[in-house]
């Protein structure tokens, strides 16, 4: 159980050489070993989505993946979203549309939405709502989050057209 193995994680373009137990989740490795605590633990069984990160561009639950499984993949977390002082359109939109209250679910929603934005910018509204319903928020009633993601997608499309 406690036998450790060497693994190198690429998180936000930076390499983290780690020595950890194979049973350690990607979530715990990102938080405790890499020190990137923006990714949150909400349920540890893949329902709430607070731990959503991008692995090779796809949103995944970091609580359901072992760190060793992520070796060689490009992992992106909320800390990598902004470009220096310039916030990502999704981050700006969440502030503008009051999509944040306690902020605990926020990084997971951001990474889920970033995955959608980058992979399916032409997504239909119904599919968007379906995709966003895979994460839980307990504070906002979702209204601000939906408004923000819609606005960011519109901005993204306008910018890339």
């Amino acid at each position, binding site marked *: *159980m*406690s036998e450790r193995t060497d693994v190198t994680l690429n998180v936000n373009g930076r390499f983290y050489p780690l020595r950890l*137990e194979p*049973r*350690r989740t990607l979530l715990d490795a990102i*938080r*405790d070993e890499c020190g*990137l*605590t*923006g*990714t*949150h*633990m*909400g*349920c*540890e*069984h893949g*329902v*709430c989505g*607070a731990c959503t990160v991008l692995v090779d561009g796809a949103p995944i639950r970091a609580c359901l993946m072992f760190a060793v499984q992520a070796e060689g993949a490009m992992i992106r*977390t*909320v*800390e990598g*979203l*902004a470009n220096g002082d310039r*916030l990502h359109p999704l*981050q700006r939109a*969440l*502030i*503008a*549309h*009051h999509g*944040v*209250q*306690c*902020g*605990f*679910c*926020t*990084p997971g929603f*951001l990474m889920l939405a970033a995955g959608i934005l980058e992979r399916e910018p032409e997504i239909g509204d119904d599919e968007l*709502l*379906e995709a*966003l*319903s*895979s*994460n*839980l*928020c*307990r*504070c*906002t*009633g*979702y*209204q*601000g*989050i*939906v*408004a923000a993601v819609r606005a960011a997608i519109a901005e993204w499309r306008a910018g890339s057209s």
Partner: protein
Amino acid sequence: MSADPNTSAGPVLGRSLPRLEDPPLVRGRGRFVGDISFPHQLHMRVVRSPYAHARLRAIDVAAALGAPGVVAVWTAADIADLPAIDFRDPAAEALRPYRQPLLAEERLRYVGEPAAAVFATDPYLAEDAADLVAIEADELPPVLDAAAPPGRFAEGLSTSQGLSTSQGLSTEAVEMHGGYGEVEAAFASAHAIVALDLEIGRHSGVPLEPRGALAYWDASRDVLELYGAAKVPHRNRDALARMFGRAAAAVVLKEGNTGGGFGVRGELYPEDFLVCLAALRLERPVKWIEDRRENLMAANHSRQQRHLVRVAVDAEGHVLALDDELYLDQGAYVRTHGARVLEMTIGMLPGPYHIPAYRAVGHFRLTNKTPAATYRAPGRYEGSFVRERLLDAVADRLGLDRIEVRRRNLIAKREMPFSRPLSALGTEIVYDSGDYALLLDKALAQIGWDALQTELKRRRAAGELVGAGLGIFVDKGGLGPADGARVTVDTTGAVELVTGGSNVGQGFATAMAQICADALGVDYRRVRVVYGQTDRIQYGIGAHASRASVMTGGATHAATLKLREKALDMAASLLQAAPGELNIEDGVVVHRGRPGGPSIALGEIARHLAPDSPVLGDRDPGLCAEGWFRTSHMTYPYGVQIAVVRVDGDTGQAAVERYLCAYDIGRAINPMLVEGQLVGGIVQGLGGALYEEFRYDERGEPLSVTFADYLMPTLREVPPIEILLTEDAPSPLNPLGIKSAGEGGITPVGAVIAAAIDDALTLPGAITRLPATPQRIKALLRAAAQRARPVAAEG
């Protein structure tokens, strides 16, 4: 509503300015308790009872003690010198025997009860070792129905209630009475009596961030620090200091970011005491982060009540009297609130209506479930369900329109302030202001009630199960008695506002910064708001029962006005003007009506107020001031909510199509934040009305211990929610006219949804139990179909 991008011009109060809290949160720079670590820290894992009710024989910790990384394993015997967890406020002596010990002693009373604590160098190793702890116990039959005749909580205990030792201690901890007027006489002379048997399910706040605590004992200063505080850090500091026999100043609570409060988080639980005790005794920092399963079986539950209620009315539908016997399922122990939820249920149940005579008998009963306490709008979600169900039933019985019945019973504007001989949170109930009929009119106009009825009728005729429900409610907030704040401007002009408040996600810092900035005349972004740090300010009222805006806001306002006066006094002397001729604009003192005249920045004034300043004179040094706000009564915001619900006849699933919340806030500090609070509350209310329930099997085994079983609304279940925010009835109790926003959204949701489902099914009074799950709605539809069938067909 989106935030006002133009943040520097115009008045600051009453504007939807962006939150100061957001920039770090959207960058993942929040500092939640799980994000904090100390070198050399230990991790606690709690071993929990697998039994709902059992006599504890032994706990074998030998194997766990020998496991890798384990430093200590505690059972009750190891901490026998510590008492049970006390009540926050003075509570009836009769409740004391029902308090929860830090670790189970002779009995295990619910699945999830802490029985042992493992301390190890790594959280994984702590969990491994916890699995090796063996609990030996003899199972006892569990008590699972609070409305059944009371059983025995413990044998051989005599209490101040005078129960004899042979009877033991009853599972009915308290029978509470409330009311006034001649109830019997009113029922005797009534035109009609309507009786209902209503149940509200067991559900709770369930913040997305699990509970956590990190205790650190600084031996050099002999100070115990606890990270992960929330809600009421100062009150909790006092409770911890009492428990450990320490001076209050030798215990420091530190609140960082908090992942949702809702009444549940920030209460003192056994685990909070255990990490503190372990930090003191093991002399290492100790961290504990619960997992979701623990959260669902160990953090406070709430709500579960059954009401056997009757109302007497005259022929016009005027309520003559209300008689309620209610049973509150408290779970296994009485926690920090004592019997407050029961008191609030009784005190707030009459709501916005004239109830000439009222009698409530509340049974506060212990069962073998997770202990219960407050969840957003405690007592009012339950009471509003009961009251509004009754009004709907009266309308149905008398063949009257349900809106008309409500109108006939509403308390009128001219009767304000309106007092009732009842109490809630220990204060007399006096509605401070309100125009309930006006808000009802506005809500009906906003949703287009008459056109909506026509449309729903048409859709029902076409075979759809669709209907509308309405509820009116009064909420409460702003309970005193007093709160203070301290504001300081430094030599750069930066403002620091130190409060004893708590920021559990509601935007407290932004709201306080707006009040301060507005009163002082600075950009609200220059105000740094301190909250939840017990070593920064002596007292703090915290964030509970919707009181932060009124109390800490009032204190902030008072402190800032004093600081402003001091600034203008100094500026007047420096600019050789009269203070009355001066004003503060964007952090600079200017001469009113003399644009371009002499001016001086606040930072500069602060420099002239330094202790060594040659122009200080007799003034106290520093550009700072402390202010207090005091009040003896609560504020009473009110609202009207309307829902349109469609039921799927095949699955029994109710879907909310439309939702309107009309709410009079008195005065909004930041309308965007108010709307956020209302919408968030409504969606939680939908959870309790339709989906969320802590269920137990017949052995007391909890069945809702994952998010796959405890179903919270996702955005798929949530319709667009319309908010009609009004400011028709500012509170006369504070200078800003503020009421409160935290709990009004959730208060009537159960009632409104139940009424809408009744209407959709064309079965008046059908919904008597929340949550209205698909199974329950299907059962109602089946029963209705059965009744509709001719009797002969059955034979």
